C-alpha cells in the first residue's frame, strides 16, 4: 500500500509520467543549447585571430593593392577609415553593454568578425595596414571579449535558472510558476 502511495506521488498515471519526462527532456535540451551557445563568443574570437594572422601577413594570397585600385578605383583615405573604425568600436561597445544590461539573447559575435575583416581589407587597399593593424586588432579584441563575456554571463544565468526548474520539476512533478520580476 505504501509503495502504491509512493507510486501515486511519483507519477500519477502514464500521461503525467510522459509529461514530466518530456518537460525534463525539454529543460535538459535547453541547458545543452545554452552550453553550446555560451562558446559562441570564443569561436568568433578564434576566427578573428585567424583573420588577424592573415592580415599580419599582409594578405599574401590577395592581389597587390595597386591592381585592386586600378580595377575598382581609389579606396577611402586611412583618416576616413580610422574615423569610421572609432565610430564602429564605440557603437559596438555601447550596443553590447546595453544588451548585457537588458539580458537579451543576441547572436551577434560573427558579424563583428565580418566587419573587422572589412576594416583590415580597406586598410590593405589603402596601403596603410602596417600603421593601423593594431587599431583594428585592439578594436576587435575589445568588442569580441565584451560579446564573449555578455553571452557567457547570459548563458550561465539561464543555465542556473533551468537547473533550478529541473530540481523543482523533480521535487514536485511540475514547472515552477514564472517569476514576474524576471521579465
Amino acid at each position, binding site marked *: 500500500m505504501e509503495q502504491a502511495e509512493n507510486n501515486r506521488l511519483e507519477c500519477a498515471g502514464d500521461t503525467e509520467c510522459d509529461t514530466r519526462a518530456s518537460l525534463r527532456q525539454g529543460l535538459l535540451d535547453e541547458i545543452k543549447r545554452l552550453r553550446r551557445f555560451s562558446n559562441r563568443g570564443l569561436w568568433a574570437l578564434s576566427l578573428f585571430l585567424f583573420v588577424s594572422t592573415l592580415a599580419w601577413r599582409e594578405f599574401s594570397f590577395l592581389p597587390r593593392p595597386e591592381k585592386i585600385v586600378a580595377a575598382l578605383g581609389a579606396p577611402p583615405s586611412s583618416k576616413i577609415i580610422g574615423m569610421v573604425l*572609432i565610430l564602429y*568600436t564605440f557603437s559596438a*561597445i555601447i550596443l553590447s*553593454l546595453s544588451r548585457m544590461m537588458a539580458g537579451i539573447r543576441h547572436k551577434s559575435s560573427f558579424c563583428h568578425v565580418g566587419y573587422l575583416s572589412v576594416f583590415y581589407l580597406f586598410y590593405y587597399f589603402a596601403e596603410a595596414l602596417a*600603421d*593601423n593593424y*593594431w*587599431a583594428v586588432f*585592439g578594436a576587435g579584441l575589445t*568588442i569580441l571579449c565584451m560579446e564573449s563575456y555578455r553571452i557567457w554571463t547570459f548563458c550561465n544565468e539561464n543555465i542556473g535558472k533551468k537547473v533550478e526548474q529541473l530540481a523543482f520539476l523533480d521535487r514536485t512533478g511540475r514547472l515552477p510558476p514564472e517569476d514576474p520580476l524576471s521579465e
Partner: protein
Amino acid sequence: MFDKIAGRALVPVGIVVTGFLVVCFVLLYAAIKNVVIHDSVGHANNLAGIVLKSTRYAMLKSDRDLNSTIIRNISEQEGVEHVRIFSKKGIVAFSSKPGEVNRQVDTKAEGCIVCHEKQEPMTTLGNMQKARTFKNSLGKEVLAITAPIYNEPECANAACHVHPASQKVLGILDIGLSQEATLSSLSSIKMQMVLFSLLTLILTTAGVIALIKLSVLVPMQKLQEYTERSEHNSNLKHPANLPYELDKIAKSYYFIRNKLHEIEKKS
C-alpha cells in the same frame, strides 16, 4: 572571479576602457605620423627646388666645375645623404660621390620606376609621388626626392647646347635626406602618447574601482558581515551609514530576524 560583484563590475569596465584607449592611441599616432611624413616630404621637395634653382645658372652657362662645386657643397650639409643629377638618358651627370659620374641607371630602379613604369614616361609628378624611402648601405633611413628638371625657354634658346623646345624634361635631380631627425621626433611623440595613455588608463580604472568599492563593495561587505553575525546573535543592530537601497535591505533583515526571534521565544 565572476561570482562576485567586483569581478562582474570591474572586468568589463577594464576591457572596454583599455581596448578603446588602445584603438584611439594607435589611430591618433598613425594620423600624426602621416602628417609628420607629409610635412617631411614637403620640406624635402622644397629643398630639391632650392637645389635646382641654385644650379640653374651654372647649367645655363654649362659650367660643369661650378655645378660640381655646388652639388659637393650641398652634399656636405648635415642631413644630406646624396645629391645626383641625371641626364634625360639616365646617365649620372653630377654626383656628390665622384665614382657615380657617367654611370647608367636602370629605368626599373626604385626612384625611376614611378615615371618609367609605362611605355610613355610621365612628365609631371605630385609631391608624394616624387618621394621614396629606403635604407642606405649604412642602415640609415633615407628620404629621397626625384625632381624633374623641366625645359624652359632660356634653356631651349641657350647658346651652350641645344635642347629642342619639344623636350619637356632635361634631366632629374635625385636628393637623399636623412630621416634620423624625423624618426627621432616620431619616437618622442610615441613615447609621450604611450605615457599619456597609460596615465589616463590608470586614472580611469583606479577611479572606477575606487568609486565602485566605496559605493557598492564596502557597504555590501558590511551587510554580508551583519547577516553572518546576526545568525549567532539576533540582537545585533543593523549597520548604519549604508546607501539607501542596502539600508532598506538591512532594516528589513533586522525586522525579520526580530520577528523570528519573538516567534521562537513564544513557542
